């Protein structure tokens, strides 16, 4: 996909965004006419959409594979656990976001000079460090492993997650059209060259990392109020680091729809399988991850684009052959 395509106005390309917008409106109104079960499930799906889109905002854009998603999500979870009784839900989310942003900024400032697998290992290390540190602190000072979080109704959590998701979607679309987004693209395509044409790559990366972490922290703060009980293993579950990566790989990271589709598909499969067949679910997870990386480098969206491209070509070919 060429950069140009994203900028050139093409009326046919409007169909999809309009369709998505309609779906989103429907989703936003859904708690009024669906069963609570659906509202809970849709809430979970939105959480995954937020996580995978925000992961894609940094890692997908720059090629720096971060596994720190669970760390920033967990920070948000603990913000709710500590301040849940004194702040309202939107304020908790804001605070979770800000905490994650600040931590990500600091972590990014010292680590983003690491490249490739080193960076990935480091981010996974951060998750495990926070998990173990929290566990140690809880057991040493609190004498228990977990704690209770003030709870909100799942409808309330639903609406706030919905708002956060809309913001993340808009930001994902918008960021690509800014110079900041162009700078990220340059970094992904060749960081050395990017630095030498005047891009302050370190600062750009740190900022993108911190912005994406903001959404992760806010999502964590919201989800904690739905779970009522949390402990370090729940808050910093490494699955929350891996799932967004898989969702983006499966859906395709170059287009906003990719992570969106990936998140919906996997959240749904998870909902179907995880209670009765947890191992089969995780097994499928692994298999799909491997198959996607090898056979669908641009994800489902890439496959669809290819098919559409081929159909167009075939049509064009026929026109040429038949003057």
């Amino acid at each position, binding site marked *: 996909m060429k950069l140009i395509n994203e900028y050139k106005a093409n009326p046919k390309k409007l169909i999809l965004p309009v369709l998505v917008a309609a779906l989103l409106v429907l989703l936003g109104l859904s708690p009024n006419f669906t069963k609570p079960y659906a509202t809970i499930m849709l809430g979970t799906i939105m959480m995954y959409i937020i996580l995978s889109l925000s992961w894609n905002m940094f890692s997908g854009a720059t*090629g720096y*594979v971060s596994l720190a998603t669970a760390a920033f999500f967990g920070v948000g979870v603990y913000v709710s656990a500590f301040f849940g009784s004194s702040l309202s839900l939107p304020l908790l989310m804001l605070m979770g976001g800000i905490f994650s942003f600040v931590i990500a900024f600091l972590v990014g400032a*010292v*680590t983003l000079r*690491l490249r*490739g*697998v*080193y960076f*990935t*290992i*480091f981010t*996974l*290390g*951060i998750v*495990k*460090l926070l998990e*173990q*540190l929290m*566990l*140690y602190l809880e*057991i*040493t000072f609190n004498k228990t492993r977990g704690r209770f979080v003030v709870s909100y109704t799942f409808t309330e959590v639903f609406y706030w997650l919905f708002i956060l998701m809309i913001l993340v979607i808009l930001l994902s679309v918008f960021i690509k059209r800014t110079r900041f987004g162009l700078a990220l693209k340059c970094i992904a395509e060749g960081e050395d060259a990017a630095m030498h044409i005047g891009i302050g790559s370190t600062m750009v990366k740190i900022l993108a990392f911190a912005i994406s972490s903001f959404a992760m922290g806010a999502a964590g703060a919201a989800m904690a109020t739905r779970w009522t009980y949390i402990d370090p293993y729940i808050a910093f579950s*490494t699955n929350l680091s*891996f799932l967004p*990566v*898989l969702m983006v*790989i499966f859906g395709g990271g170059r287009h906003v729809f990719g992570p969106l589709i990936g998140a919906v598909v996997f959240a749904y499969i998870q909902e179907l399988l995880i209670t009765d067949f947890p*191992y*089969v679910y*995780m*097994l499928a*997870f*692994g*298999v*799909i*991850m*491997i198959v996607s*990386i*090898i056979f669908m*480098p641009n994800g489902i969206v890439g496959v669809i684009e290819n098919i559409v491209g081929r159909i167009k070509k075939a049509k064009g070919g026929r026109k040429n052959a038949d003057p």
Partner: protein
Amino acid sequence: MLTTLINVLSSGLIMGGVYAIISMGLSMQYGVARILNVSHGEFIMLGAFLCFTLVRSHVHPILSMLLCVPVMFVIGFVLHRTIYKKLSDVSGSTAAFESNSMLVSFGLMFVVQNVALLLWGSEQKGYTFLMRSVKILGSPIALNRLLVLVFAVAISFAFYIFLERSRLGKAIRAVSQDPSAARLLGVRRTRVAAICFGIGAILAGCAGALITMINQINTSMGMNYTIIAIIVVVLGGMGSIPGSLLGGFILGFIGTVVNYIDPSLSLVAYYLIIIVLLLVKPSGLMGGKS
């Protein structure tokens, strides 16, 4: 006092030896095949469960460990020849391959772990083996621990000597140091990479088998060993085999000492080590260029 010292020393050597074995495998897989094999720990788990299953069918533990060797090699070799080879065909550059192969190994981690969960369940498993103890310098030490200690140290040094002396070992080192020069010397890179992946799996399997002789095992044990191996490899320098050998023993002793002071802190200590290390000297103790 002396008993404590001997306890710490022997535990340190056992842990260090096991860590060295698994880390050398991981380090070689990265150095030669350019795969940061995050599923390494799952192969340790697989080796442990293979060995456990054999022991349950009345095969002697040491024989079980030896039987793991060919099985693990075939698994590793075939995996490389199929998945990773295909992946290297579709990856545009080394950097892209490194990133993709790491993600694929994450996928593999879920596959192996959940296949094991389906086969063996999630409970702790174990068997008793040589529980008698002997006295060394007046302090009792269990025979099975002593045996594992001897095996761990022996395997890690034997592997090191294999790399230094044998023809295959030299080819492996040539590829890890300079792939293009190695090609000129007639070393077939992808074949060597596949063999290395198989040998890495053997080392993981042996480590897993050794662990069954002294500890309980469960199907989710892999991840922690993966992380330990990665810490050791970063400590010793990515791709450096002597670095992993040394790093394994260093981390084994650090782990034992921290464990002795406060067991709940040992994982925190590990993660702190890796994080500080990556920040201060990402190329590791014995690594050259970063």
